[in-house]
């Protein structure tokens, strides 16, 4: 009674691997969507053009202040209610999480861009550089250094956040853990192996971000 029986769950490792791969795939979709949308939102906010700024502001505050779990459910059940079309469980969760994380990326990027001295914009303007060239060659390469650490944290947060997809039955890591737990009646062992799997997924990401930071710091002469 009460002993830790890891041996009862290790046999499920192929299921764990499948769940981890799905978690990874979902994370990739969400992060890709979140980065692109987040950069667009950040630029819309930074533009200070009212009809760009305001929708971006409303979007960011809406997605920051409502629970991502609810956003997943809205997209999964709400989309067919209003549009008569639906996304499957995987895509509902991945897109909802992407829309959510975009709001957080947007705030990170906006702060990063705002952190670049105004004189850099002025120097670019006087040289005749277009707005896109100024962003591409002058502002973003510098903002990049500042946004890297919070971006890394948010990416790791998102990978673990994909566990919310369990709510609509996506067979990702946490869901796999729950199923193993139901079969073995060993919730602690099942969730521990899931936690280890999350660590194996996220720690390399943390290391990668640290390595990029170190390289940028070294090249900053």
């Amino acid at each position, binding site marked *: 009674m009460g002993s830790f029986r890891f041996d009862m769950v290790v046999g499920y490792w192929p299921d764990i691997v499948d769940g981890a791969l799905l978690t990874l795939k979902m994370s990739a979709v969400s992060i890709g969507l979140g980065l692109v949308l987040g950069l667009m939102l950040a630029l819309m906010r930074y533009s200070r053009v009212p009809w760009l700024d305001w929708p971006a502001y409303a979007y960011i505050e809406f997605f920051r202040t409502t629970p991502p779990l609810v956003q997943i459910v809205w997209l999964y059940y709400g989309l067919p209610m209003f549009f008569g079309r639906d996304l499957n469980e995987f895509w509902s969760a991945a897109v909802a999480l992407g829309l959510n994380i975009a709001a957080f990326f947007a705030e990170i990027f906006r702060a990063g861009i705002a952190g670049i*001295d105004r*004189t*850099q914009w*002025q*120097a670019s*303007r*006087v*040289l*005749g*550089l*277009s707005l896109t*060239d100024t962003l591409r*060659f*002058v502002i973003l*390469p*510098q903002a990049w250094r500042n946004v890297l650490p919070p971006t890394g944290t948010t990416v790791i947060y998102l990978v673990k956040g994909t566990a919310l997809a369990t709510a609509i039955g996506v067979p990702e890591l946490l869901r796999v853990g729950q199923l193993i737990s139901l079969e073995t009646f060993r919730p602690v062992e099942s969730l521990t192996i899931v936690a280890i799997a999350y660590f194996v997924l996220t720690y390399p990401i943390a290391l990668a971000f640290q390595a990029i930071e170190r390289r940028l710091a070294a090249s*900053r*002469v």
Partner: protein
Amino acid sequence: MAEPLVVIDRVVKRYGAETVLDRVSLEVRTGQVMVVIGPSGSGKSTLLRCLARLEPIQKGRILIDGVLSAKGTEDEGPAPDKTGGHDIGMVFQSFNLFPHLTVMENITLAPRRVRGMAAAEAETQAIELLRRVGLEDKRDVHPARLSGGQQQRAAIARALAMRPRIMLFDEVTSALDPELVGEVLKTMRGLAEQGMTMLVVTHEMGFARDVADDVVFMDRGAIVERAPPDRIFSQPAEARTRAFLERLLEREGGTRRER
């Protein structure tokens, strides 16, 4: 006489309720070096920034070589021509080089992206410019590795790379350690000798005396007096000019740098 290269025509610039430029008119001919002096807050830097189109103006107009470059937002009339903006080069007090790019990349970025110059051509031009400002051995260095004077000379080379017809200098030696001021002024003298049209806001009276064709004294957003340097420094027509120059000489006292 040919039409002036720069025409500043009754320009009014306000920040909120405060009028920073009050119907300023000034003409600069090709090849002229104009030095603008005046107390801080007199509007001299704002005048340059309006010329560079970094600031909108509320009234009046600015023509570059006869083409409307800026016009008062409160005025009627056709919109200014936005294609000729890179006729004007500007050098700032704080250099404003791009810190993540090497000196070479700083200089070649705009010619390549704006003028569509090929990489090799832009580099050849940059090497020639670096030689002119005495930085030929610094091409692959990042700005942080340069002294203030070297950064400012690199900034001058960057501005020249766009082949501007007018160069604006906004207190370009004010942020420099005293021993570095000379090398930047020397570069500017060289430019003036080669016939560059220049508008220079500075506190370096020695430079104004030696290089300027005309000195403009500004106070409280208006041009008080414009005269050749020997006249404005020896017998200013306006009492305000005299008072400013006296205060300046008093402050600098016997330690005034001669150059």
